[in-house]
């Protein structure tokens, strides 16, 4: 079972609908026991880094345990950013620190903030959830972007004045800055690829 972590943030219904559309059952849950049994965890999220980390306090351990056990994990949007060490959005708040690095404010320089809308990907490193994806357009809504210490974990970037991290992958941990559940058929293909990474599938 895929468990979508409900920590009081964002539009959880859409990501559930996305998985349903590709024939995959999911459960939206706040229950740690359910997360312990999960084959895969999905961490969605819209909002601020600090608030999200506050709400994630009780789920930190289970997320770390799940990842350490090698089980597939997908972070989406803010669910990508909280995987990092810290963020300029709320200085002093510690992230999940699964990836070393900082979440930075997108430089304005004549560009509208947030970076909102459809932007195309540039694939920079191989990653199984991006199988079959090339320079496709994905739907983004964000004002901050992740800057990993280890650039090799960046699977794809998108250009908005500068190259922004669009997807990161390391072993069983996948995360996208864009919303696959709002990125049309191509986005659903990313969810399909994620499902393929679950050993029981």
């Amino acid at each position, binding site marked *: 079972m895929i468990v979508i972590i409900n920590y009081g943030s*964002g*539009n959880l*219904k*859409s990501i559930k*609908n*996305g998985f*349903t*559309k590709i024939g995959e059952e999911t459960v939206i849950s706040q229950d740690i026991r359910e997360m312990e049994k999960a084959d895969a965890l999905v961490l969605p999220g*819209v*909002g*601020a880094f600090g608030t999200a980390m506050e709400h994630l306090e009780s789920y930190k351990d289970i997320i770390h345990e799940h990842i350490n056990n090698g089980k597939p994990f997908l972070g989406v949007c803010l669910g990508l950013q909280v995987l990092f060490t810290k963020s300029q959005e709320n200085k002093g708040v510690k992230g999940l620190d699964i990836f070393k690095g900082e979440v930075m404010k997108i430089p*304005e320089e004549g560009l*509208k*903030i*947030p*970076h*909102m*809308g*459809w*932007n*195309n990907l540039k694939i920079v490193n191989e990653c199984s959830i991006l199988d079959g994806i090339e320079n496709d*357009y994905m*739907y983004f*809504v964000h004002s901050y972007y992740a800057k990993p210490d280890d650039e090799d974990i960046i699977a794809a970037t998108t*250009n*908005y004045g500068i190259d922004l991290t669009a997807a990161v992958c390391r072993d069983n941990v996948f995360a996208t800055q864009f919303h696959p*559940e*709002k*990125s*049309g*058929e191509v*986005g*659903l293909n990313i969810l399909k690829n994620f499902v393929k990474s679950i050993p029981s599938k």
Partner: protein
Amino acid sequence: MLAKRIIPCLDCDLNVPHGRVVKGVEFKQIRYAGEPVDLATRYYEEGADEIVFLDITASHERRETMTDVIKATTENVFVPICVGGGIRKPEDYVNMLKAGADKCSTNTAAIHNPDLINEASKVVGSQACVIGIDAKRRYVENPKESEDKIIVETDKGYCWFDCSIYGGREFTGIDAIAWAIECEERGAGEILLTSMDRDGTKDGYDNYLNKAISEAVNIPVIASGGVGSPEHIYNAFTQGKADAALAASIFHFKEYSVGFVKKYLKKRGIPVRL
């Protein structure tokens, strides 16, 4: 590169089960275009970048019909959904987002209670707070005599833009450009900008209005009102500096498909998602 968005708009009459999409010229000659869920699905399949549902009845009693429409739509439509009409309290935003919407648009309620923008953006985030501005040109003889208004030079002379509420039935005297700036400061994430002079005319968007607002704020602006051809959409991006273009009747009555419009734009050098 960020693509320009094409957004079909569904004006929904929710007084019948499942609702129905209507389109009128200045609220007259109402034509029935189909059921909201069916049309939204068709536009998604044609390549719409986002879909806007406007409850033209803006009635609180019909909230449930609207959430049902959103729930049914988002089972099969995987692009952002914006809902407008009758959104008055932060909890209205929350309920629409829970149903599967990504953004809510407010006009009258925000003008009556601007703090709603601050409150709602704190609860659901700026990205979910769209402000609808319905603006009408007010021509002035001498631009220097209108110090309290932001004057724009247009094809037909100097004017300022007056915000209307209640679907164009009442005018407020509020300067639309100044209001757009205030909305951004209060936490709005996007402006859905409709020209009341052009709405329903098919003469093209008011690109003087679009450009003035787009350059005054640092949040995306959706051009609306008056589109009759793909060229009008091209002009909204080039002359109007808009980030997205909204259209209703050209899509509803199959004059052009979303896909046709996007191919046309691409050919003319506009970045679009195909």
